[in-house]
């Protein structure tokens, strides 16, 4: 019978396979990479795409920022802006006019010179409503940009961006925007190569193949060499990049390491230099290691529970505060979270460009019980029940389960949990179809404003029903007019104090970035934005000797 014969034929092959591989997997990718200057980078997921005006996620940004460069770039050590495509910029007295002087050496990867016109065209594309760019609002500080992006204005000439000459770009802002230069490092403000895009279709087409390996033209430190779906993306050092002498890596390979446990295992056997994150329960193991590859650093993001203040019993501020006071954040962080995060008592991460948020409360069970009693639920009596919604995830579950018990112990109240599949959860939050819901906010740029404007009355990400005209006034009117950083921060402090007294959400912790980084990787500092600037990174082949 042929089946048997096939099986017999295959048997020796199988045996051979086993003996071959049994000798061990040979030299690891990391060792090879160190020798060849190739960084193997765990990048989370397969990127949606590489068009800077379409993509939205972190994994995409890592690759896009390798292939493209903004007018200004954040220094990875200080997060202060430093020259990118623009070698310098001037800001007018009133702060409303910014003039960028482009580096004449800046080239597209096909050799074309980069010009100010590239930016005018690119920003028109980025703002064009037909483009569906979800980060178009990054350019809203520019005069009339918002009107153009929302279709209220048709003529792009009225938008405050002008090419004064080939290498000079002038931008007119709505109001003084201290963080505007920072935004130039966000990929939605990057320039794209017009001839390439137009070769494959209209400027605003989402479906063209212009970002494919064989077509894409960028201006970053690296160029795209290989893109295998769900497998890897390989970039190589660019020969046309203006600052190519500073680039030390010969290439980077990005892996879509979807499963964080798999990512950790890949790191452990030397398949990766860098992991996007680390499974929570592995932290103690790695932390205890000598020469630990575990790197933990503050991150510009806050983890909190939204409270729907239109719903009983949460419309009572005392209940909201009681819930928040009953949480022992320190204990939560030190046990379930393995001390990997920082307890949060406000929305803004501490030290956001020098800003320190107010800390108005702490863990205070007595006060919490008192507040709840005043609200009419002494020792949980008459408690109508409360549901906490969160999207399915191991760490969300852990936090929810721990808090559920804390509330039970401290206040004697029942909180039920409801985990939802991601899109269902998004829908619930968006429709305000919840009582209490998990939420995380990651800053787009380093400024308290990015967190505090969440809770504006018409804030798209407010989702609590909180609305205070006084608060809106402080954030939208008073703060931009502040004369100095100190004055501005004082206004923010007052606003955040007001916010935390009303407690439309319960802050839980401030995010940290958690990575495993191979000791041979140099000059890849941790920073608040977890901002990756591959230009500086290099691999030390002699890392073992160096330590």
């Amino acid at each position, binding site marked *: 019978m042929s089946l048997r014969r096939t099986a017999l034929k295959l048997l020796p092959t199988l045996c051979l396979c086993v003996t071959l591989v049994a000798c061990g997997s040979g030299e690891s990718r990391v060792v090879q990479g160190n020798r060849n200057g190739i960084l193997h980078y765990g990048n989370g997921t397969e990127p949606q795409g590489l068009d800077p005006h379409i993509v939205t996620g972190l994994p995409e940004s890592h690759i896009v920022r390798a292939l493209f460069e903004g007018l200004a770039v954040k220094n990875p050590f200080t997060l202060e802006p430093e020259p990118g495509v623009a070698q310098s910029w001037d800001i007018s007295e009133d702060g409303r006019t910014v003039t960028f002087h482009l580096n004449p050496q800046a080239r597209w990867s096909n050799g074309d010179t980069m010009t100010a016109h590239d930016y005018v065209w690119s920003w028109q594309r980025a703002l064009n409503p037909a483009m569906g760019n979800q980060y178009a609002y990054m350019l809203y500080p520019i005069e009339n940009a918002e009107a153009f992006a929302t279709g209220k204005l048709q003529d792009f000439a009225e938008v405050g961006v002008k090419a004064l000459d080939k290498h000079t770009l002038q931008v007119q802002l709505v109001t003084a925007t201290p963080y505007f230069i920072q935004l130039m490092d966000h990929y939605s403000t990057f320039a794209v190569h017009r001839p390439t895009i137009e070769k494959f279709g209209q400027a605003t087409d989402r479906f063209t193949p212009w970002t494919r390996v064989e077509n894409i033209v960028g201006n970053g430190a690296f160029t795209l060499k290989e893109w295998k779906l769900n497998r890897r993306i390989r970039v190589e050092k660019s020969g046309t990049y203006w600052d190519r002498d500073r680039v030390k890596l010969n290439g980077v390979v990005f892996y879509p390491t979807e499963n964080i446990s798999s990512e950790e295992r890949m790191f452990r056997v030397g398949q990766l230099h860098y992991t996007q994150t680390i499974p929570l*329960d592995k932290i103690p193991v790695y932390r205890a290691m000598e020469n630990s590859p575990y790197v933990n650093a503050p991150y510009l993001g806050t983890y909190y529970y939204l409270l729907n203040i239109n719903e009983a019993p949460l419309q009572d501020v005392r209940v909201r505060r009681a819930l928040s006071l009953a949480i022992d954040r320190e204990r939560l962080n030190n046990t*379930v979270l393995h001390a990997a995060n920082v307890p949060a008592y406000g929305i803004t991460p501490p030290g956001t460009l020098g800003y320190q948020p107010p800390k108005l409360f702490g863990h205070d069970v007595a006060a919490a019980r008192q507040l709840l009693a005043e609200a009419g639920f002494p020792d949980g009596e008459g408690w109508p029940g409360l549901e906490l919604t969160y999207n399915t995830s191991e760490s969300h*579950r852990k936090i929810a*389960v721990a808090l559920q018990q804390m509330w*039970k112990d401290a206040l004697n109240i029942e909180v039920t*949990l*409801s985990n*939802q*599949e991601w899109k*269902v959860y998004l829908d619930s939050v968006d429709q305000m179809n919840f009582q209490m819901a998990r939420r995380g906010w990651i800053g787009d740029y380093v400024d308290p404003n990015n967190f505090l404007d969440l809770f504006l009355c018409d804030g798209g990400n407010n989702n609590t029903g909180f609305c205070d005209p006084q608060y809106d006034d402080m954030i939208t009117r008073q703060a931009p007019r502040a004369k100095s950083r100190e004055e501005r921060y004082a206004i923010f402090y007052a606003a955040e104090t007001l916010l935390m007294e009303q407690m439309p959400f319960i802050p839980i912790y401030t995010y940290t970035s958690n990575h495993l980084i191979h000791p041979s990787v140099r000059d890849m500092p941790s920073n608040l934005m977890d901002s990756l600037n591959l230009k500086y990174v290099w691999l030390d082949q002699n890392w073992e000797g160096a330590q």
Partner: protein
Amino acid sequence: MSDASITDIAQAEQGTSLWHDAWLRLRRNRLALFGLGILVLFITIALLTPWIAPYGYAEQNLDLGASGPSAAHWLGTDIFGRDLLTQIMYGGRISLAVGFIATAVALLIGVTWGAVAGYVGGRVDAVMMRLVDILYALPFMIFIVLLMVVFGRNLLLLFLAIGAVEWLTMARIMRSQVQTLRQQEFVEAAVSLGLSPSTIIRRHVIPNALGPIIVYTTLTIPSVMLLEAFLSFLGLGIQPPQTSWGLLISYGAETMEEYPWLLLFPGLALTLTLFSLNFLGDGLRDALDVRGSRD
């Protein structure tokens, strides 16, 4: 009438059904009895759990965290410092209920559907089986999410959702069994007696097709228990702090290196159940196969 014939009649009337006979035969199968014993034990524990569990199922000790087996916690604790034995006992309540009820739902639908399709045959069969094909091909996840949104979250729905998936294979197995049985002369004899099709299916066809169905059922129960965990991740299943073996195993799998006991003990519970079911299933199949007892 003589005395002898009166005792004969009494003997004839004494209820010794197929199931009674099967039980008598099953009692002689030691492995099957072992399986049955374990299952009964597990079910009893599940029923008594609220009274005999060493700890409350939500009782945490965050400072203790995950700890290995000890005198205070025989099977150790999870990362919240909750007693694992307690968790497994409460998890068993859910898992056993899901396993048995959902499988029963699948069994009921699948056996009926397959028997009717196979027995009636022709166009009815074609239409019924095409429907099965369609249901097979639908994206299950979307279906579940939708169910949850439309009907909200409850345990009954969980049973139905799982049953709704598992009955498909059951129907196919049943159908192919029935198709061969339909040709048998004893079915023809039943037709010639004037029995209605439904009676023939119930009395003559299904009992003779039970063997493979029982074996498949015993395989279904554990996979249903694992499926429940998946549905819980989609939000349809149970919510923390409630737990089930499937969930405990999938949590345990995440930390199999750090806290192996969190995987080992729930896994053991499920495996033991699977083996017991399997022994019982094989035993039941043999017991119901009245011919087999000849040798």
